[in-house]
């Protein structure tokens, strides 16, 4: 029987460390001119440099440096006046040179922080996450494991390599040790990645799509008995590819560590793989077999030494912080704190903003994104932003409701249709034959049928007992399969029964 979370936090203090890898959204790769478009045919975006062919040499993409400095500044880091690339040497077939061009003891940005706020039952709580470094490196190729158990590395007969992704610029953002979060560790971890993602998106340096791997998080977790100074042994969970998973992975590791510690066993320092389906981690490489990376300064590249002018120019071009933006939106939309937090939590702020920009009333926009759409997302175990419905779909649907062409109930059907991939709202309305029955004569026929079926109720209404009309309206709605506008039905019915 798994340990209860309450029991874990009653006895232990969690300590976190978060490493986030972000693929930068440059046009070309880090060290060569190959395209970076996602999803291209295999090995069509490769050249001597990113294939690591003998004799090829790297040249740094200046834009990637600017982006990295922008990230550092947005995270309140100091920008190093002198930094260098280093080679991290290890063999792996998806890495063409068998070393990764990275940064070691001389990263571009150091010593920053990011403040995050989480909602708790005691109200909002603030946490400061300290950033150790922001450094540059390059991504690896992708391998397909063939034969044996499908797609898994173990049991595969052979692998197929595509180097389109090799050499795409990556930025790694590493926190210092995060303590003092107590029971909120999972939420803080999630809030950190969420806030970081918003900042990166705001900077325009990456498309930050966790599901496509352009933002990936490794979560280091360790426990120490409350009151003990010494840090416990940590595990490093890889493959955490959604905000929800960050939270689950941290909570899951905390429970797993506590179970081991309670049994008097040792936590092994190792990498773990997170599985979205079970929410559990399985062991990977243990640090005992860890490689000696033999870092040394990359002799094919020269140092990066940004001038003060360059740094200040980038600083001046930084957009407003997400927290500032949220405050502005909240005021503009007149949203209570709790509702605002709900939107942030459901990760629909961007969508609501985009919908409002299309002319939709903020309350209505929020209602849909936080209501029906969030409900479906939850059901599917994804975030609302990953569903194939966008702001213009929602704006169109709300517009149709306002024009009386859809009822709320019908609109929900349209939303469902869009998410099922049946097309745009107009097509779905047409294909599904959805329409509000507003034609008076067909409504009247239904009304008369309802009166005939329940003459006693009709009599009560005629006698001035208006609330009794509900039963008749219900019958009409049933008759018209929900396509009638209830308000319209009520109006016609009451008029017919002499009560208007």
């Amino acid at each position, binding site marked *: 029987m798994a340990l209860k979370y309450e029991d874990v936090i009653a006895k232990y203090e969690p300590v976190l460390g978060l490493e986030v890898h972000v693929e930068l959204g440059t046009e070309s790769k880090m060290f060569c001119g190959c395209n970076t478009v996602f999803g291209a045919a295999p090995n069509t975006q490769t*050249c*001597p440099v990113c*294939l*690591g*062919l*003998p*004799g*090829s*040499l*790297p*040249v*740094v993409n200046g834009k990637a440096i600017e982006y990295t400095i922008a990230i550092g500044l947005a995270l309140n880091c100091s920008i190093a006046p002198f930094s260098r690339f280093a*080679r991290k*040497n290890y*063999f792996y*077939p998806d890495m*063409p*040179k*068998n*070393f990764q061009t990275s940064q070691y003891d001389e990263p571009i940005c150091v010593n920053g922080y990011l403040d995050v706020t989480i909602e708790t039952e005691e109200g909002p709580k603030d946490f400061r996450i300290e950033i150790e470094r922001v450094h540059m490196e390059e991504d690896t190729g992708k391998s397909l494991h063939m034969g044996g158990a499908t797609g898994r590395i173990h049991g595969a007969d052979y*692998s197929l*390599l595509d180097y389109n992704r090799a050499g795409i610029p990556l930025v790694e953002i590493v926190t210092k040790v995060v303590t003092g979060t107590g029971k909120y560790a999972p939420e803080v971890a999630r809030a950190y990645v969420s806030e970081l993602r918003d900042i990166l998106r705001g900077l325009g340096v990456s498309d930050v799509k966790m599901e496509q791997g352009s933002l990936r998080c490794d979560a280091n977790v360790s426990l120490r008995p409350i009151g003990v100074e010494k840090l416990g042994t940590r595990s490093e969970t890889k493959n955490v590819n959604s905000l929800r998973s960050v939270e689950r992975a941290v909570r899951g590791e905390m429970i797993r560590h506590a179970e081991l510690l309670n049994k008097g066993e040792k936590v092994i320092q190792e990498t773990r793989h997170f599985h979205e389906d079970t929410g559990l981690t399985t062991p990977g490489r243990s640090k005992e077999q860890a490689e*000696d990376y*033999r*870092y*040394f300064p990359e*002799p*094919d*590249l*020269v140092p990066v030494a940004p001038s003060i002018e360059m740094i200040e120019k980038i600083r001046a071009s930084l957009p407003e912080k997400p927290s500032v933006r949220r405050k502005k939106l909240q005021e503009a939309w007149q949203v209570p704190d709790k509702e605002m937090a709900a939107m942030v939590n459901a990760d629909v702020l961007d969508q609501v903003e985009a919908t409002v920009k299309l002319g939709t009333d903020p309350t209505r926009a929020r209602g849909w994104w936080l209501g029906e759409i969030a409900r479906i997302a939850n059901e599917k175990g994804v975030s609302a932003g990953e569903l194939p419905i966008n702001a213009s779909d929602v704006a169109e649907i709300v517009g149709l409701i306002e024009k009386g062409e859809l009822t709320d109930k019908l609109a929900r059907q349209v939303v469902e249709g869009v998410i099922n991939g049946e097309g745009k709202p107009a097509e779905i309305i047409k294909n599904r034959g959805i329409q509000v029955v507003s034609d008076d004569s067909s409504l009247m026929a239904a009304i008369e049928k309802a009166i005939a079926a329940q003459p006693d109720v009709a009599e009560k209404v005629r006698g001035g007992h208006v609330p009794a009309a509900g039963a008749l309206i219900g019958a009409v709605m049933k008759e018209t399969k929900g396509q009638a506008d209830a308000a319209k039905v009520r109006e016609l019915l009451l008029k017919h029964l002499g009560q208007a």
Partner: protein
Amino acid sequence: MIKSSATQMAAALAKGEVSSLELTQLHLDQISKVDSQVNAFLFVDTEGALEQAKQVDAKRQKGEKLSPLAGVPLALKDVMTQKGVPTTCGSKMLEGWRPPYDSTVVTRLKENGVVILGKTNMDEFAMGSSTENSAYGPTHNPWDLTRIPGGSGGGSSAALAAFEAPLAIGTDTGGSIRQPAAVTGTVGVKPTYGGVSRYGLVAFSSSLDQAGPCARTVLDAAYLHEAIGGYDKLDSTSINAPIPPVVAAAKDGNVKGMKIGVIKELQGDGYQPGVLELFNQSLELLAAQGAEIVEVSCKYFDYALAAYYLIAPSECSSNLARFDAMRYGIRVGEGSAEEVMNKTRQVGFGREVKRRIILGTYALSSGYYDAYYGSAQKVRTLISRDFENAFQQADVLVSPTAPTTAFKIGEKANDPIAMYLNDIATIPTNLAGIGGMSLPSGLAKEDGLPAGFQIMAPAMQDDRMYKAGAALEAALLTKWGKPILDSAPVLGAK
């Protein structure tokens, strides 16, 4: 004709006395005649060379403006990629590999209309001083076929000395252009680091490697230097500045008032007496032309060899990691990717390469980095300071290029340290990134074999060594009455 200098050939081409096609064919004929004895070439690109020659002839016919070396043939060290042409680096690892791209040096040679005859033999991945470490058999010194032609670029220097090509490309990490030039009676120049693009040069030690010209005369080397040199945006370590005026300097050849610094530490013990004698005679010739000879001391040069044999293996252990049987090159063995990598690297690399990879892996590993690689980098600083001080006292610095003349094939094959000592005089310039040239100083009295005279100049002042080199070359030519290679045995008369 094939015994002429490249400059003379270019003049004959310009005057229409010979076509590039004819000139190329003459060299291909010489290759067929002598290369079975010399083994300078790993691949002869007969078709490609004749095609290039025809194109240059056609352009000349149309009256197009051509570069000075247009139509002159050249031999390319097999460490440079040439699109579609086998590039092995003297290693079994790359057997059959035809790169899908041109190195910048090759791009520039093609732009200049230089005809590439083929790829020349070398120590595997440029690691060696004798060309015995080639997986394709040693190259033989045309002066004495039982002796080494130097290394790693022994194929290029032997091709020049055997009149298989008037020009060649070499690369120099610790002396691989200059030492072969010295022992074959030819001219070799290692330009300032960053002076010639490394793009497409298969890396041995990235912070030391430098491509450069090999020729039979100083002026020929200067023309080739200008053809291949200059800024390349594909190489981050390329110098973004004009090429020093090396052709003008080679034509000038005036050393009046030039201060020539003799490095005290690069002579004496370990140097063959005949080599030192020739060196001193050369100094006298330079002095006679108005140069001022001074002695300078570079006390940290004693540590250069040690630093080099840490830095170069360290970088090579990383540079050669990519040869893993996954994307190109040979693949040996069965089993997992890791097993295939391990097996392929056992079979594909030769002894010297493996020795250096293991040494470099050791020097970079955690716990040893500071003591070895880190300390070697500090020695590098000390050597650069030595040079800075010496260049305060002299315009150029000089020494014998190599301590001895060519040794016998096999003589030092089992003694790595003795082999490494060959580069004792050439290595400091690589560590400091400055330029160095070797030109013939004569035939040593002990064995009648050529010895080399090395001239070093401060970074980006490569023209100084061409000026001094041309002066010495002219004085020696006057003294001997004929080029040194005219004294070499005639090959192919088997």
